[in-house]
């Protein structure tokens, strides 16, 4: 997904060149896309084994 991060960076640069009133609309998208590899990793994880309580000695 390195292509996606590069794409997000390019979008960031492109938007930064525009007048500031575009920033609040476009910046959240660029940020989301830059973080999307992490999001993709996170949503693909198997559910936490938290529900499986370790057997206690008691």
């Amino acid at each position, binding site marked *: *997904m390195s*292509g*996606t991060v590069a*794409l*997000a960076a390019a*979008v960031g640069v*492109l*938007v930064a*060149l*525009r007048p500031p*009133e*575009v920033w609040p*609309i*476009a910046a959240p*998208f660029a940020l*989301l*896309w830059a*973080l*999307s*590899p992490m*999001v*993709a*990793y*996170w*949503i*693909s*994880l*198997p*559910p936490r084994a938290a*529900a499986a309580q370790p057997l206690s000695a008691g």
Partner: protein
Amino acid sequence: MVEHLSAPSGVRYVITLDADTRLPEGAACRLVGTMAHPLNRPRFDPRLGRVVEGYAVLQPRVTPTLPTDREGSLYQRIFSGPAGIDPYASAVSDVYQDLFGEGSYIGKGIYDVDAFEAALAGRVPENALLSHDLFEGIFARAGLVTDIEFFEEFPAHYEVAVVRQHRWARGDWQLLPWIIGRAPDTSGGRIHASIPLIGRWKMLDNLRRTLSAPAAFVTLIAGWTLPFASPVIWTTFVLACIAIPSLLPVLSGLIPHRRGISKRSHARAVGTDLVLAASHVGLTVTLLADQAWLMTDAIVRTLSRVYVTRTKAPRVGDGSAGEIRFRPQPLSSFIAA
């Protein structure tokens, strides 16, 4: 792979499955029964070279198995099946089957060996197509059987799903020569393939689907950067296009399906649906850039292969886990009838 494998004599139907397709008890018998019904028997037209009546292929409904709490990743839970609680809501009716009397073959089903082979004889040069199920279904005439159901696991990992999507997109674009009617046959000559209009439309619709993520992405960028465009309007427009299909099922779920459901339980069900739909929208937006990149990559690769370098062998795999999940058409089970 399987091309040199010929079916044993006396075999009339073949059921094709993927390694992970689950066949419920009795489904095979019911498929054979549906196939053998006098009204469904295929009639092959030698002049057109395809099945013109009845069906040589039947495609049962394929439903993703419900992820269990212990196994399913968040991705699987949000993206498998339509947003909403009823996994069957979108699969009982199919526009193509309802309006044109033929469905789309998606690689898992049953086919009549003789009619199928007759309809596809000499159609495609070796190794020209990566994904041939839709193509086969068009010539052999595929029927959608919604009351027989196969189950299949939806990938739990995004990267695995991505490999699959990329391969499907490449397969869809390899059909472009057939859509525009300038495809080579096995002898290497170019013939005007007699593809019915609805078949071309189905193939074209697949191309449309691969273009939607890149188009949404480009629309957003254009809306933000072009001097005369209004960023608010275009952003709202793209977001609405993404959100409406996910949110509609929630609306239909607002009315309780039957009496006797307590208000609290109904509210909870609607709430769950709403959270699921909202996560679906949120993730679709987040993954939009990646999807746009992925699809563009698949399209450019395929077009350069088909039209520029003219290499025949498709790029089958990157060897990742998703690779095994492709629809190869293994002759998993023979049913002699």
